[in-house]
């Protein structure tokens, strides 16, 4: 089918006004993109794709398409951006079921009106959808306190490649009825289904919050501050180390420790922490919340203007991983744009915006080797395709890959969802 024919077929299902144009990656040409208004239209689009052997790439707002490799073939994109609004919201039960295209910002505002706070707390919330966040398995800055995103997905509605509408889980905080297929779909990057509805567990809105900040320390001192804080009986939302300086190495690190919850508990935790280290800056209340949001958005290397590496390690080996990667950066005279979450064992490295693709690939391979030796993995995000030749963004040596391929074949036997983007070419 020609592009014009595809656009026409899409328009018959979603209406001409809802056939858009989007890029399947930031560095690929735009393609027709259907924006269905309900789950029936999602199903109809996928049935069309099955019938005409078209390849589909699902997305929310597309903010994480650069996290994957280029698809082998795509005929049209399917955005969930028109699937918005709550299906059910039970503040007294601490749950919400929402359509997958709702932006994180809108969803966060919605749950706040019910006295709750949304997790995951992800960067640029106005530019990503809950469906996209779940499909990408994107956990938030609040992971230290609340855990990864997949722990809070209570159930989903999903549409398979042949247009079948299915459900998994439910809308209750505890439920073991049937297989947890939503655990399979979370983090599958749109290779198994289109998520159309997501039920989430909610957490109480904090009464008060504070952010401790220590500027201008070296890595050893920064780690010491973080460990001292973590050893206290306080429930941190996040403890983050960040460095945004160019080499040579110096006292370029800052430590951010965020607390929130019941006012009395936060006050006591704040007092205990203040006895251990005197912060360079202390933010409290609304100021702390605003600062945390700004910090989250500016430190996370979001957007596609620069590539980044998301590196993990075994927790006890994470500091050694950072030291080794810092040395590698310095040896290449690469700027240090780093965000380290020591107790989640994750390091994010922002790479220069105009980095030579070959140099980027070489450094990513080196860093992946270091991560693997420290019991971790490395995910290349938003690298230009020129850098991904022969470099799997996720890492190709994955336990269970054959089973993953079999799962994909069972759930998408027609091969409707674009291949080649995910782990091992899935």
């Amino acid at each position, binding site marked *: 089918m020609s592009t014009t024919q595809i656009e026409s077929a899409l328009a018959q299902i979603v209406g001409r006004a809802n056939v858009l144009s989007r890029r399947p990656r930031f560095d690929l040409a735009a393609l027709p993109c259907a924006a269905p208004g309900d789950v029936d239209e999602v199903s109809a689009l996928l049935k069309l794709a099955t019938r005409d052997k078209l390849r589909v790439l699902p997305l929310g707002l597309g903010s994480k398409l650069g996290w994957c490799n280029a698809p082998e073939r795509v005929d049209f994109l399917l955005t969930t951006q028109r699937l918005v609004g709550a299906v059910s919201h039970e503040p*007294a*039960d*601490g749950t919400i079921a929402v359509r997958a295209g709702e932006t994180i910002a809108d969803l966060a505002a919605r749950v706040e009106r019910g006295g709750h706070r949304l997790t995951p707390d992800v960067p640029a919330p106005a530019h990503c959808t809950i469906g996209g966040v779940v499909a990408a*398995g994107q956990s938030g800055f609040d992971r230290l306190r609340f855990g990864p995103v*997949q*722990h809070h997905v209570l159930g989903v509605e999903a549409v*398979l490649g042949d247009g079948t509408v*299915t*459900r*998994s889980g*439910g*809308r*209750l*905080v*505890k*439920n*073991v*009825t*049937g*297989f*947890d*297929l939503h*655990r*399979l779909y*979370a*983090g*599958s990057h749109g290779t*198994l289904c289109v998520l159309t509805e997501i039920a989430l567990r909610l957490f*109480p809105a904090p009464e008060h919050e504070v952010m401790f900040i220590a500027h201008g320390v070296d890595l050893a001192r920064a780690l010491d501050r973080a460990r001292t804080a973590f050893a*206290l*009986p306080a429930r941190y939302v996040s403890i983050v180390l960040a460095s945004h300086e160019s080499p040579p190495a110096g006292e370029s690190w800052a430590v951010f420790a965020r607390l929130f*919850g*019941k*006012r009395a*508990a936060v*006050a*006591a*935790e704040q007092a*205990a922490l203040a006895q251990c280290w005197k912060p360079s800056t202390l933010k409290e209340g609304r100021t702390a919340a605003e600062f945390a949001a700004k910090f989250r958005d500016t430190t996370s290397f979001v957007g596609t203007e620069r590539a980044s590496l998301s590196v993990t390690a*075994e*927790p*006890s080996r994470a500091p050694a991983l950072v030291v080794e990667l810092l040395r590698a950066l310095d040896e290449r005279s690469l700027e240090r744009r780093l965000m380290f979450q020591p107790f*989640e064992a*994750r390091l994010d490295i922002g790479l220069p915006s105009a980095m030579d693709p070959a140099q980027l690939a070489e450094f990513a391979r080196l860093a992946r080797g270091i991560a693997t030796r420290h*019991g*971790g*993995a490395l995910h290349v995000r938003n690298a230009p395709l020129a850098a991904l030749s022969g470099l799997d963004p*996720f890492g190709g040596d*994955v*336990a*269970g*890959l054959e089973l*993953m391929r*079999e*799962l994909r*074949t*069972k*759930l998408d036997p027609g091969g409707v969802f674009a291949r080649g983007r*995910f*782990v091992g070419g899935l």
Partner: protein
Amino acid sequence: MEAAVLEQLRAVLGDAGLISDPTRLSAYECDGLALLQQRPAVVVLPRTTEQCARAMAVLHKAGVPVVGRGAGTGLSGGATPVQGGAIVGLARMRDIVGIDVENRTARVQAGLVNVDLSFAAEKHGLFYAPDPSSQHACTIGGNIGENSGGPHCFKYGSTNRHVLGLVIVRHDGSVLDLSQPRVDPLGYDLVGLFVGSEGMFGIATEIVVRLMPIQPVVETVLAVFKDLDGACDSVSEVIAAGHEPVALEILDRLTIEAVEASIFAAGYPKDAEAVLLIECEGSESEVSASLDEILAVVRRRGAMEVRRARSAYERKKLWAGRKGAFGAMGRIAPDLYVADVVVPRTKLRELVLGTTRIAHEHGLKLSNVFHAGDGNLHPNISYDRRDPDQVRRVLAAGDEIMELVVKAGGSLTGEHGVGLEKQAAMTQVFDEASLRTMCAVREAWDPEQRLNPGKLIPVHACREMRGAQRPHA
């Protein structure tokens, strides 16, 4: 079972790892759901992953159906044998391979008894959070099969939030090693998907779990009520107000009487209509702030008395009554049907009343002991399985309870699994397309559908439903 197959199994497992004589096999005829029984053809008891894999390869070649079993404490018939099939029991795989204190993880064999892990971790200031009431008997492997919960899962989450890695023996005896803990899954989340798969995807033989730090302050409080409604309404209000205790457990009058007459006597007041067990933990400030507000709620909702445990001994005693409640029910009748449903936490009172009404309509004795904080009800029906009419009424009441709960937005099971008991009711919750999708995923793991056949999915298209024979009730 063919003698040649038995000999091959014996060669793998030795005499200690194989049971084939009818007398000893009778011990494996059922799990905790004694209503359903079927004698297996053979029981294999591997000691290692390698033995398990070799035994599974023999069973695969012989086309023998396989049912995995931990300690057999499950309450949904998930480990009920299949006619002509094998039980792969994990009771001899109970080693703690290692505790990594720095990374707060433990690697264990699947047959390790749940509570033994917390005992071993305690000296490092750590514990394993999922704590089913049967934790002194049930195994970590069985907990993975059912995605088990427990009172403290209200705060810490069920088993699937604590499993970081698995070694799985697959249907054909191949070994899938997913035991390297990952900050995020690499590829599809096979570990997360496996937890709660009720033995239909493979046999987990080694497990890496997350351990939690023991909190510096723990406060356990017993609130005593003159009616069950007050206890239920307290919980709904505590949840709605956004408090985060570790556990909120309710026991009703009949349960209290049984507990107090048993070896689990906890000092619960016998004149109470209900007690609410509340536990908060964390820093001193956090516990103090939270508990004061919770106690204000329970007093406002009619608590006659509030007792704070003053020592670790008193706390343990209060919990012994709760955790021993199911055992204590033996004083009421020889058998106990433990239902397991979840309701929206805003509807606790009306649905507890509804389940009680259903039991009374069937002339049955029902007691309530449940994880109120999660909305996870356990309406318990005491009966005598030697009386066929009682059995019929128990099953009918169980079905009606599930129907009532599902209609009110609840779910069939919160922690016991679907197994055989709730298989037919799955159609109340999932449409055919959703069940077919579960079948498809299951076929990816086990193309021949020989692992725990005839459980969980009531889809006629599935081969298991064509071939399986329902055990005799």
